[in-house]
């Protein structure tokens, strides 16, 4: 368990009908770090992400999590190992209240989720912990609001609270800032920074400012391949990265 790297990929490749979306990607995510995966649109970030959480099955390559080969596991099983993801488009249960959203996650660990003969009031024992988690992400006043009625930025926060409820070892965040205004971005960035004390985080992000401030290590993808890896300061000096990410000019 004391491996230096919590998640590794070896030669990860995904082909869609003749198109190589991800090719031969080797990642090593250091335990306890915030690792960012960046790249221009169409670079294969989200595909890569879906491969890691097993929502897609790789065409070739291996994924090792905590020393265990998870390449052919089902997505729910991966989640049960403590590798939990978020989604690019905010993923909440729209017609459950914020509290119930978090409770669904808490409930999973306690094994009574097949009990169809018991009243759901047995779930009330999770309420204190759920409120705690909502407090953590600043959603106390939304506890009894249906998720569908919450503002966009708050939904992202709720999603993170739900993920935290599983007490994962590692979180994968898919563009947590997508579609947010500046104010929300700062709040979520602060939240990510805070939770990173306890969890390893791998995030896909488009917003370089956020990445610059948050991440320990950055991997740059272009056209499905790893172009470069390092800290932000180094990468900004890398001509290849500039060209790939900021665009190639001519003349």
């Amino acid at each position: 368990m004391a491996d230096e790297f919590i998640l590794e990929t070896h030669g990860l490749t995904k082909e869609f009908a003749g198109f190589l979306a991800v090719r031969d990607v080797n990642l090593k995510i250091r335990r306890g770090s915030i690792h960012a995966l960046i790249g221009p649109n169409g670079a294969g970030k989200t595909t890569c992400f879906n491969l890691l959480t097993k929502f897609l099955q790789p065409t070739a390559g291996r994924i090792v999590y905590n020393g265990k080969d998870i390449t052919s596991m089902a997505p729910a099983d991966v989640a049960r190992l403590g590798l939990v993801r978020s989604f690019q488009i905010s993923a909440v249960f729209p017609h459950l209240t914020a509290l119930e959203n978090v409770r669904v996650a808490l409930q999973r660990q306690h094994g009574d989720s097949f009990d169809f003969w018991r009243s759901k009031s047995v779930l009330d024992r999770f309420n204190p912990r759920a409120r705690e988690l909502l407090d953590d992400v600043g959603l106390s006043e939304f506890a009894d609001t249906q998720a569908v009625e919450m503002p966009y930025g708050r939904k992202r926060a709720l999603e993170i609270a739900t993920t935290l409820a599983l007490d994962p070892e590692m979180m994968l965040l898919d563009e947590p800032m997508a579609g947010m205004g500046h104010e929300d971005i700062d709040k979520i960035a602060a939240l990510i920074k805070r939770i990173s004390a306890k969890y390893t985080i791998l995030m896909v992000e488009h917003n370089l400012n956020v990445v610059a401030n948050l991440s320990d290590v950055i991997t740059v993808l272009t056209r499905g391949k790893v172009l470069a890896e390092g800290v932000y300061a180094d990468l900004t000096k890398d001509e290849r990265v500039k060209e790939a990410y900021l665009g190639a000019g001519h003349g």
Partner: protein
Amino acid sequence: MSVITDNSASASSGRGVRDEMVAFVIMAALLATVPFTGIYPFFVMQALCFALFACAFNLLIGYGGLLSFGHAMFLGTAGYFTAHALKVWGVSPELGIVIGTAGACALSVVTGWISIRRQGIYFAMITLALSQLVFFVYLQTPFTHGEDGIQGIPQGMLFGLFDLSKPTILYYVILVAFLLAFLLIFRTINSPFGEVLKAIRENEPRAVSLGYKADQYKLMAFILSGTLSGLAGSLKVFVAQNASLTDVHWTMSGEIVLMALIGGLGTVFGPVVGAFIIVAMQQYLAGFGQWVTVIQGAIFVICVLTFRRGIVGEIAALFKRSL
């Protein structure tokens, strides 16, 4: 993942559950007075069996988001098993019900395991095809007596105490069984399991990413629904005193969809209302021959185009209550 109804999407808060309990007590009281009203009890008993069947069906579509077009196979299987056990083996009524319901349960495990592999339209087509397979099997196996069906089934003494050949006693036995099953369904919807099921229906990828194996929950819902449909089929044997191919035919599967749809998919009481409406319609309009089929088809069309929440769903929406 396709969610066909938004009725049940409105979470039943504490008040919702209270409303539903009040409605339940009213329903139970009304039904309990039937034998004193001069209403033909046979009609109400039949409607109760279909109401239970529709509620069980609704559990799957309304809360699991899965439209089964083959639910008649559970009704019919339980009917045949119970009928055979009563008539040929001469078992007691309670054991007959257990045998029939267990048969439907076993069938739902197998068919659920197969059909749960696909969703949406494919799920509907697969369940329909499976029920047709079951239909042909029953058409050919000797114990069902093919087109003749099993006839003249003895009703017997329930627990050795209640003479089920007395219409009033039979009525109350059916009523109690219906109410208990109804409560079980109601509890299932409002159980820890029901919560997960709702979460999966709302956002399956998210539920999976939280570590829920969605298929297992859907299968569980399928089995519960199939088993309770079986209970309805077993009870029906005591009312109709026969078991026949009609109950396994796809038209029966279509009828149950209609009952749930007209009452309100994903509402607690909708299927009961729907079942009474359709059974009454078939009874009173029988003289119109096949026009009944036409009317049923028209109701389907109207419900789908303009009335998707069903009667109870519309009423609930009007009063902003969940029923």
